[in-house]
């Protein structure tokens, strides 16, 4: 079996809406459930052969996007395309494509009431690139016994089993939908390490959805941030690292420096203000800041995530800048 090349994927103006429906209440009354929009004009690319992070808050539309990629559902509008780079097509009902796409959900798709070994045998039949030796190695690492039924496993072990299936299948498009949720920290790190090591040896396209931004951002080569059904940005990860900057200093000075920039966040502490702006500051800005007694800091991806996805209700009260977190990012003057 020749291995397929890593898949790319593209969302073009994709909409997913759920229609109004009726549901029965406990006393037999019928309730109308209002329709809702899960994705609203999503356009972005998933580059072939890279690890893409799909970031977003709960309910942002991450799982809906991943379900579309795996052809578990069809969009209400727009198109979703996947396939080898340069040969993208609609994956819906396309066995040649879907057999090369694996969507791993939190507890995996497993035979709950049969031994783990039965699920492994099933995946071995179904997945052309399945590596049985590697699967057993991973289950050993995660301490998931082969002779136990998934229904008897703890939540963390279920997630570890799901992660194992995702890695050992080596699908050209492997999608992990918050698969780490049940795992404790050491297990999550073991999963990240296994993912990186196996990805380096067997290059393929991996999409990992997450809201643990700080923990996962370094795994990504590409990042897509979705919020309330829309793409906020889709960019190479390295470019995002230095995208937001902060200015700290006397209020008048800082406000002056921030003029003309998109302000993401403003904190006041007596006469001192800290403003987070979207975008890197120029050398001229840096010199002006230094001359006026303000400091320029760099904000990580997590800060960008928090500021760009905050709702108006969550606008924070004025508080002391949180200098105890990641101090290296705050004081640096460039």
């Amino acid at each position, binding site marked *: 079996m020749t291995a397929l090349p890593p898949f790319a994927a593209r969302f073009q103006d994709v909409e997913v809406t759920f229609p109004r429906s009726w549901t029965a209440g406990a006393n037999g009354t019928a309730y109308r459930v209002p329709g809702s929009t899960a994705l609203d004009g999503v356009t972005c690319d998933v580059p072939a052969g890279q*690890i893409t992070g799909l970031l977003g808050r709960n309910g942002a539309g991450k799982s809906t996007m991943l379900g579309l990629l795996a052809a578990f559902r069809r969009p209400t509008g727009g198109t979703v395309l996947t396939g080898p780079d340069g040969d993208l097509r609609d994956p819906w009902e396309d066995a040649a494509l879907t057999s090369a796409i694996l969507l791993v959900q939190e507890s995996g798709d497993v035979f709950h009431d049969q031994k783990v070994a039965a699920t492994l045998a099933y995946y071995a039949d179904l997945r052309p690139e399945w590596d049985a030796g590697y699967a057993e190695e991973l289950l050993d690492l995660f301490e998931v016994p082969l002779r136990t039924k998934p229904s008897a496993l703890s939540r963390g072990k279920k997630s570890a089993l799901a992660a194992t299936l995702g890695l050992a299948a080596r699908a050209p498009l492997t999608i992990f939908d918050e698969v780490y949720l049940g795992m404790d920290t050491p297990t999550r790190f073991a999963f990240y*390490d296994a993912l*990186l090591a196996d990805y*380096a*040896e067997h290059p393929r396209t991996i999409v990992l959805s997450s809201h643990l931004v700080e923990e996962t951002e*370094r*795994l990504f080569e590409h990042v897509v941030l979705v919020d309330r059904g829309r793409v906020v940005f889709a960019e190479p990860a*390295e470019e995002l*690292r230095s995208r937001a900057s902060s200015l700290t200093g006397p209020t008048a000075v800082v406000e002056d420096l921030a003029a003309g920039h998109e302000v993401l966040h403003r904190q006041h502490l007596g006469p001192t203000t800290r403003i987070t702006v979207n975008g890197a500051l120029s050398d001229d800005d840096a010199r002006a800041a230094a001359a006026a007694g303000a400091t320029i800091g*760099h904000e990580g991806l997590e800060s960008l995530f928090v500021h760009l996805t905050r709702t108006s209700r969550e606008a924070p009260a004025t508080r002391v800048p949180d200098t105890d977190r990641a101090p290296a990012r705050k004081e640096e003057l460039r």
Partner: protein
Amino acid sequence: MFDGPEPIYLQIAQMIRAQVLSGELDEEDQVMSTTQFATTFRINPATAQKAFGQLVEEQVLYKRRGLGMFVAPGARERLRADLRERYFDEVLGPALAQASLLGISADDIVAYVGGHRPSNGSAARHEEES
């Protein structure tokens, strides 16, 4: 590791440069593979690859087909020459500017340097474990 504000690939490149400069990595020594970098520091292999690419361009590293990345002959000298050229502008200049801001006199600085000058040439080598 690599918690600074710059892109991680720049920080990796900087770490390797420092190791070459200090002699921790000798000429013709093999550096860690992208896979080792990725799993050791839990970063995307492409990030390490990008750092290597930059160092190859700077002639600090070179690639041996099928074997991996090695420290280029003359890399240490090249780095020393480059950093020496930039030392006054990038290191001493800002330090002296800060001194003048704090009212530290030139005499104080000269006295400090006189008391701490390392014996000729021996300061370059650190035997530091990473």
